[in-house]
Every structure is written in C-alpha cells, then in structure tokens.
C-alpha cells in the first residue's frame, strides 16, 4: 500500500511480520444517533493518555439520526495532526456504506466489521476481522433496551486487543469520559471487556498496526476550539453574549454558558455578572452585541456563514459609528446553507469587507486551541481599543473537533478597555468631540452612558467629528479618512505572522487557520520527496502587517494555501499589494468540505515546481 508517510518498521523479535507503530489512521463508520460518540472519544482519549500524538476528525451529516457518519483517529508518532486521506484500520458498522468504505481502502488495510454484513468476500488484499456485535452485546448487556447504547463500545475492546493496547488504558479513558454516570460506566465497561475477550479468543492478528505507549500526555489537555474560544471569552471578562444557534458555532456559546454559570455568579447574592440572550436571529444577535458594546460592556456573538451574511448591515454600523463587538465566525461550507457540517475557510473575503460602502474589518486567524483561547481574549482588547467589530475566524475543523493542546495560560495583562473619556482626559483635552482624532492615531475618545461624561448621539448616518448629523463632503471624507488611518494603526497592533519553517531556497508557503497543520506535514513531504525546503509563514490577522510584504520580497514564488475555491486570502492580498508582489503569488486550494490534507498540498506544490507528478485529486495549483 504505502499510504504516504507511514513508517514501516522492522518486525519486533519473535514476530514474523513487520509492524507499523503509532503511525496509522483508524476510521469508524457508523450511523449518526447510534451513540458512537462515546466509543470514539474513549478510543481517542486512550491514545492521548499513551502520549501518542493523536487527532480526531468527525465527519457527520446535517441530520439528527440515521445517516452515515465517520470518525477518523490518526495516530502519528511524528506529531502530524492534519487529516490523512488513507485509512489503515476501518471499523465498519454501517451496512449502507460498508461496501464503499471497504473498496476505498488501500491494500494491506485492516477491517473490523459487524459479522452479518459479510464483507470478507469483497477484497482479498485487505485483512478482515468479523465480530458478532449482536451476540456479544446480548451477553454483556442483559437489558435489551440498553444494548443499542453500549454496542459500539465493543469495537473499542476489539481494537484494544488487535492494536495491542493495555485494556486498563482504555478503561481509564472510559472512566474519564463517563466518570460520574455510574450505571452507564458499568455497562460500557462490560461491553469493552466483551469486545476485548472476543478478540482474545477468536481473532488472530494479521495486520501490522500496533499502538505503543510513548509516555504520557503530560500536562496537555484535550479540548475543541469552540470550548477554547469560550474560555477565552470567559477570561476576557465578557459580560453580554447574544447568539443564535447554528452549526458549527452553537457549542461555543453553549459551552460559554456552562462556564459562566459556574464561574461568574456572585457568591453572596447569587446573581449573574453576565447576560446571555438567545436572540431571534443573527441580525438581533449582532444588534444586541453592538448595543451592549456602545453602552460599555464587553459583548460578543458567535455564528457561521449564513449568520455572517445577515450581520452585514449591522457590521457596517459598528464600523462607521465605531462600536466595539467581538464576532466568532466558525466557518462551514457555503454559499447559502451549503455544507453545514463540513469545514471551510470560505468567509474570509466577505468578512474582511462585510457591509456596503467602504468598510474593512479586523480579523484574527487562530490555528490552534491555544490561539482560539488567546485570540478570543485579544479580540476583546482590539475591539475596545479600536472601537470596532473584530472577527475571530475559526472553522468547523478547529471549532468542533477535539485537539490535543498545551494548557492555557492565565492572562498576564488586565483588559485593554481602550480610550474611554474620563474627567482627567476631558480636562487635558479642554474640549471633547466624539470623533476628534486628538492623538493622531485615528482613534477618538468615547464616553459611555451613565459615566457622567458628556453625551453624544451615536449614528450610522453621516456625522462630523462631534457626532452631529452632517452631509457635508468634507466631514464625510474626513471621517472615512480617519477610519482608514485607524485601520493603519491597527496594522501594528494585530498578531504578526509566524515563520513556522525557515527554508533554504526562494520558495515560500503562506497559510492560516487549520490549513497550518497540513502545511507543516507537507513541508516534510516536500523535503523528503523532492529535497525542497520552502519557507513557511503562517498568517494570523488581517490587516496584513509589514512582515508579510517582507516575506514575499524574500521569495520568488509564494504558494498561498487555503480552504476555499476563490483564493480569498490571496484576493485580499491583491487588494493591498504591489504588482511585483502579487506576481509572485500562487494558489493551492482545497474546498471539498473535508479538512485539507498534506498530500494535496504536496502534490500541488510539486506540480507547481515542475516536478513531474500529476495531482492525485481535484486540488489544483493556479
């Protein structure tokens, strides 16, 4: 087979076959609503506990129950956590997709399947393990009504044995997962054991895949990006949250609500230091967020593409009337309803200039759990400092999948609440006008309702430096120019790009968000397969900072890798950059809805660099 990047090791002494240790991809194919989530998370957590770098990707339908769903767990001793296309170990539980699932495997893969499906005749170049799930579950779970809930745990037991994992390790993971639910725990333990025992008695190991402990997970945590962002908001001191449910962003506010209830209720009074409103739609959600921001609260909303579209008019108001707001966009496949349960980086262009007229918005581009957390905090600071809506551009892959992460650090700094007028400043200024650029950075002082400072009339219609209604050309131009200046000031305040790989030649790679993980792996593939050593820079914010231009200047060619059809980040760069720089940019695009994988990038760059290698799929270099 040789799924790319799989290390083939010599067989351990005493075994006649070679082994592949901690470097393969497990896929569980089930039906959604069948309770496979627990079994998958337990498996995932077992690897995590063993210190094996692991990543999990949930591929689920936009439906509540009854449609196919796949969960992929990748073990990678080298630390690669991007999606890998090739499946090495398949657990086939869904009769509807089983045939396709098996036919899609590379030769040499292993298949654990539900016996009645009789898959073993399908191919003779993969290894089949038949498991009678119904029979086992009937033995371990006397109550027929509960069998459906624990049936999936059997495959964890089978895999534990086949992959040579200590059962105690899986039991510990199960314990962590279900800890407090005593009855469920007991039933699942029995199912796990049932699967394990069955494998001991009936299955003979024929495939090369094994897991070996690499120590422990140390102080690492397991979390998804939505929860990480929620924690950031919590630590930023958010006080007003308005939201409208939408996949894949809902769990951000739902998790936040849980944390707020636990950590932000006054001990003595039992009263809340926060307000969460489930709004009637996204227009209302952003309206509430802006209303609260205007009144001086740290406020936020979270949404996905369709909600971003609805928020357009209000975002323009926030920009023009200069009101802080934090908006999390957990991107999914668009346009329209698109693919609600698939990932994309497809809102970059529309969000950067969301709303009519001349607008530009600050965007933060998290790649990791740590950045989901830290950029959430930073977004509140930036939005109050620049008195403008700030977007945190996450995506489904980051937001909804569980990732290993370093633990989060307690914020070192108090929040930056920006320029809020106080008696001292008023005295210094002598005279105050809401939109007067007294400091020359484009940022004016604002007053807040109830703070005893002079009031102003906030409006989205034309206004002068003192916030009075004005239709004068000079007032309008002055204002737009000051807003542009403010945006320039922001350029030196947003997170700078990170040079992730310092290369040797003059080829560069630029990426952002979740694409990062596949690019890291691709860099190694390029080095191994074609002795290419591109310099890889990861973008972290819009507006672009000077470092980006300098990086492009150093290169002859820069491959901009992103997960959308229209090269949206490249298009934004085109808006700002000189023709010389633009001429150096190439695109590597991926937009099927599945998280981008390293192979796609590597093939595209090899082709772009003139290495004779046809791209294996539809991902095209432009």
């Amino acid at each position: 087979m040789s799924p790319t990047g799989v290390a083939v090791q010599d067989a351990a002494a005493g075994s006649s076959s070679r082994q592949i240790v901690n470097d393969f991809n497990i896929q569980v194919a089930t039906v959604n609503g069948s309770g496979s989530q627990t079994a998958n998370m337990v498996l995932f957590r077992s690897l995590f506990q063993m210190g094996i770098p692991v990543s999990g990707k949930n591929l689920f339908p936009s439906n509540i129950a009854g449609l196919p769903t796949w969960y992929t767990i990748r073990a990678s001793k080298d630390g690669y956590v991007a999606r890998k296309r090739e499946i090495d170990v398949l657990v086939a539980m869904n009769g509807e997709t089983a045939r396709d699932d098996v036919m899609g495997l590379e030769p040499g893969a292993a298949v654990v399947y539900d016996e009645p499906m009789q898959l073993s005749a399908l191919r003779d170049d993969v290894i089949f393990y038949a498991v009678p799930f119904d029979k086992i579950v009937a033995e371990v779970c006397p109550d027929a009504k509960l069998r459906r809930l624990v049936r999936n745990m059997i495959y964890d037991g089978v895999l534990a044995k086949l992959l040579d994992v200590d059962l105690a390790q899986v039991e510990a993971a199960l314990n962590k997962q279900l800890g407090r639910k005593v009855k469920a725990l007991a039933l699942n333990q029995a199912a796990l054991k049932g699967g394990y025992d069955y494998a001991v008695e009936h299955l003979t190991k024929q495939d090369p895949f094994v897991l070996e402990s690499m120590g422990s997970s140390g102080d690492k945590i397991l979390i998804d990006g939505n929860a990480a962002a929620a924690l950031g908001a919590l630590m930023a001191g958010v006080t007003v949250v308005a939201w409208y449910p939408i996949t894949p962003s809902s769990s951000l506010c739902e998790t936040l609500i849980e944390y707020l209830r636990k950590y932000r209720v006054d001990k003595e009074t039992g009263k809340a230091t926060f307000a969460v409103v489930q709004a009637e739609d996204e227009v209302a959600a952003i309206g509430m967020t802006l209303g609260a921001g205007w009144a001086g609260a740290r406020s936020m909303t979270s949404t996905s593409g369709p909600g971003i579209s609805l928020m357009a008019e209000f975002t323009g108001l926030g920009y023009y009337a200069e009101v802080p707001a934090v908006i999390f966009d957990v991107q999914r496949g668009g346009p329209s309803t698109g693919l609600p349960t698939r990932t994309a980086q497809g809102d970059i262009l529309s969000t950067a200039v969301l709303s009519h007229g001349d607008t530009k918005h600050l965007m933060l581009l998290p790649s990791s759990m740590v950045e989901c957390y830290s950029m959430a905090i930073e977004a509140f600071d930036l939005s109050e400092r620049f008195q403008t809506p700030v977007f945190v551009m996450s995506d489904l892959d980051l937001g909804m999948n569980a990732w290993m992460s370093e633990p989060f650090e307690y914020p070192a700094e108090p929040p930056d609440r920006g320029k809020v007028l106080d008696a001292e400043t008023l005295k210094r200024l002598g005279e105050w006008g809401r939109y007067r650029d007294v400091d020359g950075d484009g940022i004016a002082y604002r007053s807040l309702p109830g703070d005893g400072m002079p009031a102003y009339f906030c409006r989205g219609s034309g206004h002068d430096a003192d916030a009075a209604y004005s239709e004068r050309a000079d007032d309008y131009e002055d204002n737009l120019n000051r807003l542009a200046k403010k945006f320039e000031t922001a350029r030196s305040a947003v997170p700078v790009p990170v040079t992730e790989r310092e290369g040797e030649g003059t080829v560069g790679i630029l990426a952002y968000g979740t694409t990062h993980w596949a690019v890291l792996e691709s860099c190694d593939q390029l080095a191994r397969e074609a002795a290419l050593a591109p310099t890889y820079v990861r973008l972290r914010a819009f507006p672009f900072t000077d470092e980006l231009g300098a990086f492009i200047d150093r290169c002859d060619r820069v491959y901009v890798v992103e997960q959308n059809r229209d090269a949206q980040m490249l298009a934004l760069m085109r808006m700002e950059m000189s023709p010389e720089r633009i001429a150096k940019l190439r695109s590597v695009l991926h937009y099927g809805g599945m998280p981008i994988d390293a192979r796609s990038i590597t093939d595209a760059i090899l082709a772009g660099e003139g290495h004779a290698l046809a791209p294996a799929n539809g991902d095209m270099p432009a």
Partner: protein
Amino acid sequence: MATTASSSQKKANRIGLELQPYRGSKTTLCAGCGHNAISERVIHAFFEMGIEPSRVIKLSGIGCSSKSPAYFLGGAHGFNGVHGRMPSIGTGAVIANQQMIAVGTSGDGDTGAIGIGQFVHLMRRNLPIIYIIEDNGCYGLTKGQFSPTADLGSKLKTGVANDLPPIDTCALAIELGASFVARSFSGDKKQLTAVLKAALSHRGTAMLDVISPCVTFNDHAGSTKSYAYARDHDEPLGEVNLIPYFQEIDVEYDAGSTHSVKMHDGSHLLLKKLEADYDPTDRLEAMRILHETSRRGEFATGVIYVEPDKEDFIELLNLVDEPLSTLPLERVRPTKAALDEIMEELR
C-alpha cells in the same frame, strides 16, 4: 411645533432643572409633522417626572420618526441604529447598563414592516424600555408609500387605495405579553403627556402607538391617518392621569367612575372610565375594546393594558444590581485557580 416655549419653561422641576435641558437640537422634520408634537410631549413628560437627562438613553431605527431622539433630551446618550432594529440595540444597551432609562422612537414602517420580528421578541421579553411608535400609516422618509399600519382602503395622495389589512401594534403587543400598552394621538397634548408619564412609572416594556400624521404625504382627505380623521375618530377610553410617586394624591376621585392602578414605582395611574366597566388590567377586555373600536373605524386611546408587576427581562436574567458595563476586573475575570481547575478537568 417642537420648540414652542410654554409657561412651564421658567419653572424648575423637582430636581431643580428647567425645561431647557430636556430639549434637543432643532428639529429638521416638516413643520406640523406629528412627530415634532410627540418630541415636545416627551420633553414635558421627562421634565415633569424630574428625570435627569443623563440617566436616559435614547434609541431609534431609521425614518423621520427615528430622527426624533435628536430633538429631545440633548444631554442624554443616543443611538440611532439601522432600519427596524432598535429593539436589539436597546436590548443590548439596557442589559449592559440596567440603571439607564431607555426610551426609543420608531415608525410604523420601522416597527411594522422591516422590524416586526425584533418588535415581537422585544414584547415577549418585557425589556424595560419605553417604545414609541410614531404612527403615520406611511413611510415618511421614503416619500409616502403605505406602511403596514395603513388601514384597508386608506388612500395615498395619488388616489391609490391600500388593499391589505393593517397590523394593530397594540393588539399584537398585548397578545405577545407586553406589560404596558397605550395608544394616543400626537394632537392630544394632555393625554399623551399623561400616558408618557405613566410609561415612565412602569417597569418593563411600555409600548405606545401614537397616531402622528405626516403632513407632507398622508394628511389628505381619504387618508385614515390625517389630522382631521384622527380628531374625528379618536375614541378616548377615559381621562388618563398619572400621580407620580413623589406627589401626594391630592385629586379627589370617585372609585366607581375611576380606575386606579398602582404602578411599579409607587405612582398611581388614574383612569376615568368612559366605557362603563373597562378594566385596563384585564387582557381580554383590552383586546375586546381594540377589536370593537376598530370595527367601528375608530381607534381607542389611553392606557389600554397594564400589568404593573410583571417580571421584566432584567429580573429574568438575574443580573447583579450594578451595570455589567463597569463591573471591575475581579468580578468578571475568574481567578487563576479557576482556570487551573478547568485545565485539570480537560486532562
């Protein structure tokens, strides 16, 4: 006219302010526009209730009516948002700082058309806000098109008749659970002032639909929102009188002919009954009155429905007493120990 001086101007109110600080900038609306008369009543009501302008936030959507907040309470903060979305801006602002008194003006288009969704949900939430619809049955700012409150058969200047039934914002508000619902007429100074003062004594959403003729586009014969039509078809439910909590009840009233409602702040709302046994705290009664008067082509005015002690949105959210907007860091950022605890759970 909004800026006509009245004799009360020289007098100071209970907090020592004259009328002037309750005024705003000079109106830019058409002379004779009903909206100006409403601004003038707002000025007087806030003056008479002795409310410090800096304790007020003014909100609006887009339309001639939504420009009104610029013309009253110049010392108050204001937010003129986007078309039809005043409720959401107001909701965010009020929950961010519950100590502010919120007053919003909207239009019949701003509320009844583009903003009907937000209006509906505002009523459900019972957010503490005075919500005034300056109702002229048309879109003034876009030059006179029909709005959703235009009556069936009412005519545009061009003679075109409206062929869709109107939305009765008062009936809708009551249906949705609003806790204070009134209708008035911009031409009835006395009643409108009293209704506004009552609204200021209320806790929760006070929804006021004020018939406010558009002299430029909807004041002709054949229109059911003209001054003449409004004068002829205004059907007051009775005299409205608000005795504020800070005043002795010195008026004599007969309990048989006057209905007294104790408002949340301790003020007394006295409603002299014209309709034999109209009880404004009875929701079914209120709906009956609205339907009966509208069937006769009239519109009932006064306080139509009031539920003085209904839980408001701030109570529902169980917020701390201080404004959320200015809570100190130690009350909004959990401790390092809390973060450590969360990290441990995630291991």
